[in-house]
């Protein structure tokens, strides 16, 4: 298991990391984002003590799956196991751009292990009691650091995507779902088919 410790950041380290940080998209627009990106690079990256996921994964590692599942449940107040939110998100994020996928990996890593830094806890997020998880999430939600709020919002959005994007969750909120597939209505416009390149370059 990787060592869980509060990171020791120096200016020199930030400068060394700057080249890589500069290529990242989601958070690099602010000073706090740069600091968090640097933190993410020095926090522990793996741990053998995560349970094996119950489904084959396309995107998440076992620890990311467990981390995201815990985030989703704590954020959305989920108690039941009817929807495997992490598995749903795992299925969907493979369609995202490479840079966004990289951001998600990184966000989960810093969120899981940021407990040492932001909450002075001796345990990573997934090992906290539910009440402490809520408290830790509130810290991200209300942080004065814009980048922490970005990460919180991004994770909340992914959780919402994974849970409320699934029809099984709709009954409990009274949402009747899309019309398509249950109401037959005619489309009006006739769209021209796209043409091959040579049709545009000809003449």
């Amino acid at each position: 298991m990787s060592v869980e410790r509060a990171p020791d950041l120096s200016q020199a380290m930030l400068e060394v990391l700057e080249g890589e940080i500069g290529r990242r998209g989601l958070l690099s627009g602010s000073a706090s984002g740069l600091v968090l990106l640097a933190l993410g690079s020095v926090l522990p990256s793996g741990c053998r003590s995560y349970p094996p996921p119950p489904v084959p994964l396309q995107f998440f590692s076992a620890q990311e799956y467990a981390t995201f599942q815990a985030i989703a449940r704590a954020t959305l107040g989920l108690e039941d196991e009817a929807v495997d939110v992490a598995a749903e998100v795992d299925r969907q994020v493979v369609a995202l751009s490479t840079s966004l996928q990289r951001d998600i990996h990184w966000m989960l890593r810093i969120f899981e292990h940021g407990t040492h830094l932001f909450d002075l806890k001796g345990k990573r997020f997934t090992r906290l009691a539910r009440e402490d998880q809520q408290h830790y999430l509130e810290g991200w939600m209300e942080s004065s650091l814009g980048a922490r709020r970005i990460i919180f919002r991004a994770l909340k959005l992914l959780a919402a995507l994974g849970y409320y994007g699934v029809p099984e969750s709709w009954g409990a909120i009274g949402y009747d779902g899309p019309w398509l597939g249950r109401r037959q209505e005619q489309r009006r416009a006739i769209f021209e088919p796209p043409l091959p390149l040579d049709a545009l370059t000809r003449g």
Partner: protein
Amino acid sequence: MILDSATVDGDVTLSAEVCIVGSGAGGSVVAGELASAGKAVVVLEEGGYWTSEQFTQREEVMYPRLYRQGGTKPTADYTVLVSQGRALGGSTIPSFCLCFRTPHQILGYWGERFGLGDLSHEALFSAFERVEQRIGVKEMGPEHLNENNRVLMRGGEKLGYRGRFLRHNRTDCLGCGYCAIGCAYDRKGDALTTYLGAASKAGARILPDVQVEKVTHEGGVVRGVSGRFLRSKDGGHHALSVKAPVVVLAAGALESPMLWFRSDLPDPHHVAGKNLHLHPYLVIAGIFDETIAAWQGPPQSYGIDEFLNLDKSIEGGYLLLAAAAQPIASAALLPGLGSDHRRLMASYARTAAVAFFLHDRSSGRVTADARGQAVIDYHLGEEDKHDVMEAMRKASEILFAAGARSVVLPYNDLVEIHQRTAQTVIDERGILANEPLFLSFHPQGTLRMGRDPRVSLVDSFGAAHGVKGLYVADASVFPTSVAVPPQISVMAFATRTAQRILAG
């Protein structure tokens, strides 16, 4: 004709009389007008070609297809999430169809303050009429009120607030309510089914999936644009060059200035990117005993304009509207965590929402980071913060007057008030750096027009002051916030731009 970018297998060079960058409200109008008049037009769009057959009414599928960055781009300090359409047809595809003419008071102010006296309402009248006829603008009526809009109307009327049915570009709307993720039934007069369709029929070459990197120019004269394909037969990002004596920037108020910067276009007085207005948008939710089903029906058919009193003050004020979203967006935006959030979502079908667009005095700027990506700096000034707090109070009053059991304020944590007097919490909390989180659908003002080249980049027709053949035809040109949703303003100004190009 519209290109199937999946057939591109090498670098491409095209020639045209006019090259238009962006295919939304501004670019589509210029393309349609010029192509119909016989000009050889090329339209370049960064987004894809999606038609109603591919509009699934599923948020998780449609947001990434129709919006830049899958939905929103945050300001640098993460206080506003800015939405921009990115598809053939631009933001008109996922729009709520709101059609407001540029207020005559705003035009008058622009005339006095920025030397734009030729932009009177009378001068623009024919452009407004032409656009509205083309995209099918009609006034909504009682038959278009869903329960969410009835709440707004009922609450506003009880309090004596001036309101009215709004004008929309929708025809024979079925009321499915999925406007924000594309009309699956083609009842919206969006740019794709109107102006772009006409442009294509008239011979315009329309290329989706193209990222324009630079406007090429030499000695103060435009030569064309260069860019690359984002999609191709072999997966490569092949180069595209378009040679054209006229280039029209219509990529929106965040991306058009980025192109200006990347192209080293002249800006001796450092005007480009400044004067960014975001028309901030905030939502206040009310929980009722009865079913509201806010996601069903035309989303914003009624509005309260009592507090956008431009005769009294040309600056400030806000427009109150109903607001609605499908479950994913609602869950992402509703405040709170854990059981609080779960309880709010359990009330989803009984939730009505009132939103407001702030006619912002505050302005920010957009700059380019090291990778050429837009960085948005924007902060609300004190007068705007005052308006925001007042708008929050008015919105909650309306919800209570309409019968809401409680009102949920748009803070990070759950702040639910059960009586009107509890609104003091709005004053107590104020507007902080980290809350509330605003949305923006109407960025504007970053390449502003005016007579004086020291404080503006284009003239009243969108023609660049310092570069022959370069025009801007999007919301970048507005010298101030236009006060109302800008679709019709952008289209009317673009009509004038097209007329100027045709006049030579």
